[in-house]
């Protein structure tokens, strides 16, 4: 039930497989829902060369750990997993992975979406995009790149 913060590229599908085979009880869960947020190469019709994701390390970890714990109880999950990048991120690289394992599909879907919505609303990360015109902080009026 971990939340993992990474400053290097990761392969979400390999992470799901290895976590699942190490931590989940075979034959027990029936439903796995996952979400992967990937960096796009454009936003508001501007081409993005890369972005820098700043965060508040201790609070991010604390917030995501608590989110996993709450979600596991609320949705009666077998387990859940969050992986989130920080630092420099390039187009086509995964930014975030959320996964929920449950007996039934409704809980797995609800939980995976809850993890993402809560993370987007409250986890202390900030995106700065680098375009041909320079750098810009992503804010509420500039979020068409959001996943």
């Amino acid at each position, binding site marked *: 039930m971990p939340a993992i913060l990474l400053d290097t590229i990761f392969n979400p599908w390999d992470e799901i497989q290895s976590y699942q085979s190490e931590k989940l009880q075979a034959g027990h869960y029936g439903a796995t829902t996952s979400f992967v*947020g990937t960096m796009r190469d454009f936003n508001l019709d501007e081409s993005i060369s890369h972005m820098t994701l700043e965060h508040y390390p*201790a609070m991010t970890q604390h917030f995501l750990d608590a989110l996993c714990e709450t979600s596991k109880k609320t949705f009666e999950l077998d387990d859940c997993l969050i992986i989130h990048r920080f630092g420099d991120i390039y187009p086509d690289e995964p930014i975030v992975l959320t996964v929920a394992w449950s007996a039934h599909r409704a809980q797995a879907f609800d939980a995976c979406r809850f993890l*993402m919505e809560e993370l*987007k609303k409250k986890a202390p990360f900030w995106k700065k995009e680098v375009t041909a015109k320079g750098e810009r*902080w992503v*804010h509420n009026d500039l979020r068409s790149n959001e996943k």
Partner: protein
Amino acid sequence: MSINVQFFASLRELLGKQQDTVSYSDGLDVNAVWQQTCNDTVMPDNTLCAINMEYVKPDAKVSDGDEVAFFPPVTGG
């Protein structure tokens, strides 16, 4: 003891600092921490505040040794 103050993202750039220290006094709240460290700069409307990694309102009381953080709306995920 004292209060450790942290600023992030556009707020860090606006203020030109990432970290500051404020001395503790009885009855100190988050708003007062901002005023002590930011002087004449008004706190932007959408600023979020946290004490020891938990979101709080600007009128929340601070305890000696706390870490207080100020940051703009989050944009992760």
